[in-house]
């Protein structure tokens, strides 16, 4: 493998490492944004007599599904980040 090809390969490994780390960290941050914005809406629904009885169960269901989705994405990306970390050139 030529030096140029190796450098290009290392560069893409670097991009992979950055992206997987970014997705792993970003998924948790996006989850926090999603849940806290959703809480604003659920807080309003909890004050309206018609929607009050169902707002809390729906909030729990919404937050549970969201945590599962974002958490899975973060875990998968975190695992990929560990793999790319191992593949990075050591010098």
């Amino acid at each position: 493998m030529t030096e140029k090809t190796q450098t290009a390969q290392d560069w893409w490994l670097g991009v992979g490492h950055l992206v997987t780390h970014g997705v792993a960290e970003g998924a948790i941050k996006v989850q926090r944004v999603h849940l806290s914005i959703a809480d604003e809406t659920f807080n309003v629904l909890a004050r309206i007599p018609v929607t009050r009885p169902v707002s809390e169960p729906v909030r729990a269901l919404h937050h549970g599904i969201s945590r599962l989705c974002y958490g899975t994405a973060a875990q998968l990306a975190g695992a990929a980040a560990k793999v790319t970390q191992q593949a990075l050139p050591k010098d």
Partner: protein
Amino acid sequence: MSWQQHTSAIVSGFIGDWLENQGNPLAVPMTFLSQGLSVPEAHPAVAVTKPHSTVIVLVHGLMELESVWQFTGQPDANYGTEVADALADGASTLCLRYNTGRPIYCNGQALAGRMERLLGNWPVPVERLILVGHSMGGLVIRSACHYGVLEKHQWVSSLQDCVYIGSPHDGSWLAKGAQAGARILNALPRDYLRVAGEVIDLRSDGIRNLTRGDILAGEGELAGLVPDVRHYVVCGLLARQRNPINALFGDALVHEASARGDAQGRESEGGWALTASATFEGVDHLRLAHHGAVAEQLVEWLA
């Protein structure tokens, strides 16, 4: 210059300290370049075909590469070559490429050490060294000078001129704004706003150093200009003549007062002794690095 190199430079500016800690190849390594060729410090003659006793080193700013020095439509011309052409004996122009996300003092220490090796191995004795820095590059030069003096490096004795072009010696309003914005957002009771603050806080140490123009390892530690050297300052202003835009934004990123280092104090008060300064109206921060009028001024000062 490939898009990949530009991408690396931009990403390094944002999070270069993290990239370096992780061993990520996107982190830009510190390199001297001559006409696009890497100059090994141990054997500079390999890349510099006609070495001169006057050496000009151009140091770029945050998220930039050496391409920032190129004049429009003239890829081989920059401030170094312009000054070299005006000098009777000519000069060798080198560009520095580095990871701008690292703390400025780290880059200053590294530059000082590398210049000691490079100029120690220079094929002819170096009689005159000229350092030219754009934006953060000017702060890296000041830092390198400080550590060069501290380590008693030989290159300091040949240093005759330092030029700071749009360098935020007293900090950049944008970096100060980012710090203040993050602090406010982090203190708010809504999690989605705190996340925005945390994202701003991901910025590199290099960007954080631009808040106050920190160039030394100790936060807020003051460093004067290296003595017995001529120091020149170039400032830019967005608009021509007296315009409130200039007072608000300076050259877009750096105010004129910060570029002059006004907060460092006047010479009579034991502060800075600038040899000369020049302000260019209608020239923004980026164009300061490759502008014909600035080139003429540098030739007048240095040649």
